[in-house]
């Protein structure tokens, strides 16, 4: 475990920003921190980066109590609000931020050049930040975050403002970093990226943790036994107690929800007995997006489907 949070609390005058959150993050994993706006993500991240002190609870970094002054050099933090000195030259800025992280000048130069080559930014060195587009400054910010080879990289919405090409470049770099043993904490609202990138996710809302697990595990936990069955021709179905049809698609397929106590085989048996020719049968797992909305709104996601049974 690279990072463990135990009963972390941070109250502000008007709200409980973080209210008793515990979680642990394994070394080398890509960890997704999800939550609606104002859930307390930024406050949580600021405690992990040593910007805020928690009111209560402990943070263990590498198994030892987190000591911001010394441990900060092992952490790279890219906040949601991007910030760079507009009037400073790109190269100098990267060097300055690297030196603040405790890198020696020569070493920092070496690493900056390496990264600039990798991300095709060599020609930027003498440009000023104000000359860069939003996506370009995003790339620069990413480089300055990971330059000092932190053990723990915290990225708050790293893809906002990036085009698909640059977005993929950054994504690949994140995977590479994770492979070399870096742990990545990722805070985002973009759920498709979460499913694609993260091993483990935690969902927080109103300062409390409401979900914690691997992406696969969570999908299994929230599955609603909904299957899509494809036919040559849409069969006429009567009411029966094995399943209910929740949607009839135009491409001769049905969305069915298997009732409790029955198995997919029971559904297949039913259609086989009806002499229907089945061409496809697959389980519809909920997307993280659906789960997110369901949990945050407190309403079952299934309710958004309209039952079309006769």
């Amino acid at each position, binding site marked *: 475990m690279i990072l463990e949070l135990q009963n972390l609390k941070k109250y502000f*005058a008007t709200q409980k920003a973080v209210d008793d959150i515990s979680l642990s993050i394994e070394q080398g994993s890509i960890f997704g921190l999800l939550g609606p706006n104002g859930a307390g993500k930024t406050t949580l991240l*600021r405690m992990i*980066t*040593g*910007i805020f002190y928690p009111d209560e609870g402990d943070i263990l970094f590498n198994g030892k109590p987190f000591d911001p*002054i010394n441990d*900060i050099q092992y*952490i790279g*933090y*890219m*906040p949601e*609000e*991007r*910030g*760079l*000195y*507009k*009037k*400073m030259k790109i190269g100098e800025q990267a060097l*300055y*931020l690297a*030196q*603040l*992280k*405790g890198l020696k000048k020569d070493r920092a130069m070496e690493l900056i050049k390496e990264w600039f080559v990798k991300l095709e930014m060599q020609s930027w060195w003498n440009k000023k930040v104000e000359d860069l587009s939003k996506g370009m400054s995003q790339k620069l*910010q990413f480089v*300055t975050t990971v330059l000092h080879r932190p053990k723990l990289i915290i990225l708050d919405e790293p893809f906002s403002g990036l085009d698909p090409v640059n977005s993929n470049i950054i994504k690949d770099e994140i995977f590479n970093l994770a492979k070399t043993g870096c742990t990545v904490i990722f805070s985002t609202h973009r759920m498709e990226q979460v499913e694609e990138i993260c091993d483990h996710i935690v969902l927080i809302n109103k300062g409390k943790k409401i979900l914690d697990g691997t992406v696969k595990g969570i999908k299994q936990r929230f599955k609603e036994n909904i299957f899509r069955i494809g036919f040559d021709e849409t069969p006429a179905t009567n009411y029966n107690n094995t399943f209910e049809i929740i949607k009839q698609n135009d491409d001769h397929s049905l969305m069915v929800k298997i009732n409790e106590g029955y198995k997919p085989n029971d559904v297949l048996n039913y259609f086989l007995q009806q002499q229907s020719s089945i061409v496809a049968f697959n389980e519809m797992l909920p997307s993280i997006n659906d789960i997110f909305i369901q949990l945050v709104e407190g309403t079952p996601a299934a309710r958004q489907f309209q039952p079309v049974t006769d």
Partner: protein
Amino acid sequence: MNKIWLIIKREYLTRVRKKTFILTTILTPLLFAGIFAVVIFITIKNVSNEKVAVVDQGGYLKSSLESNKTVTYQFVADVDTSNFVAKGYSAVLFAPHTGINQTANFKLITEKSLNRIANTKIERDISRALENNMISQELKIDPKQIDSIKSRAENISVETSKKGEGGKLESSSFDVANGIGYITGFLIYITLFIYGTMVMRGVMEEKTNRIAEVIISSVKPFQLMMGKILGIGAVGLTQFLIWIVLISVISGVLSSMIPPEVLDQVQQNNSQVPGSSQQGSEAIRNLAAAQNTLSSINWGLVVFSFVFYFIGGYLFYAALFAAVGSAVNEDPQDAQSMTFPVIMPIILAIVIMINAINDPGGSLATWSSIIPFFSPIVMMARIPFGVPDTVPYWQLGLSMALLVLGFLFTTWLSAKIYRTGILMYGKKPSWKEMIKWIRR
């Protein structure tokens, strides 16, 4: 410590390398030199000679009107308003026919208006002529006797001396000390403003740019704040140093270029005051006295305390400016209303200084030079009057110690506001909220 050094270096280098810094640093002394040159130029211009024709049938004025470089009087009879221009005069002066002792009957007709110096001279000369006439007619005394009495009386100069240590008497000139006090006090006042607001803008820039959060995940907020304050302070010292060097070089070059006759003319202009025929020698005596006092002033102490009060006052106020910068958002109007409480004591200090400098030993001057809010400006104005006679050692020591304690306190206070403020976005915090940040 290493990180603070990095921040200082960045703050310093980015500012010093800016074009605006280089321009203002070089242009300001040039501007001074320019103003200096313009003043000299105008002086040369203004001493152009005016020829005045005097039509004085009674002959009352003849003995009293003396020509000089500004105005040349010529007593002629055949000049009138219609032909004075053609005869090469710039003006014609008509004296009354009936008798001179009538103040209303003098007429001066000019083609275009005369310059101010010539105008004043003519008026003065006429009034002197009147005066002489009245003295000789009504008092029956030779006006020259009055002149000699006046000049003898004026020869007396009051030697103000203070009892120095060990009974040695040091002569001091109030005016010189006054001037030095004014200049140093104002310099500190201006620098507090310029560099204080520079700190505030820097903090606001970091906050609105959102770079503060990135930096604060690498260094402590206190380090960031102190780095900024010290870096900008170093910029200020650098700028001063360059200014002092440039101004002294330029003024040295310029004064060697002024032709000696210009200085002569300037001196002659000054000597046209009635009853002060000895003005020239008196000026030389004054100069000697001033030089004497200049050397009697403890320059080492003045320079040391100037540097001390500049640095102390800057640190005291820069921390407060940094706190204000961290508390406000993009809105410049917010900044204005929040800087008000910080600017107030500085303005108050300069007001106190202007009053206190005329009574440097008074209780207003004494107490306000001890309170750290005002001491950098007020104490600086008092020191040229002499330590330890005007400013006892205990007052200087107490003032310095309190200033050090003061800036430690404001830095501590500001660091608390800064720590929270720099990461707070949205609405402007109220004073109540800021007090809460301090308590936390």
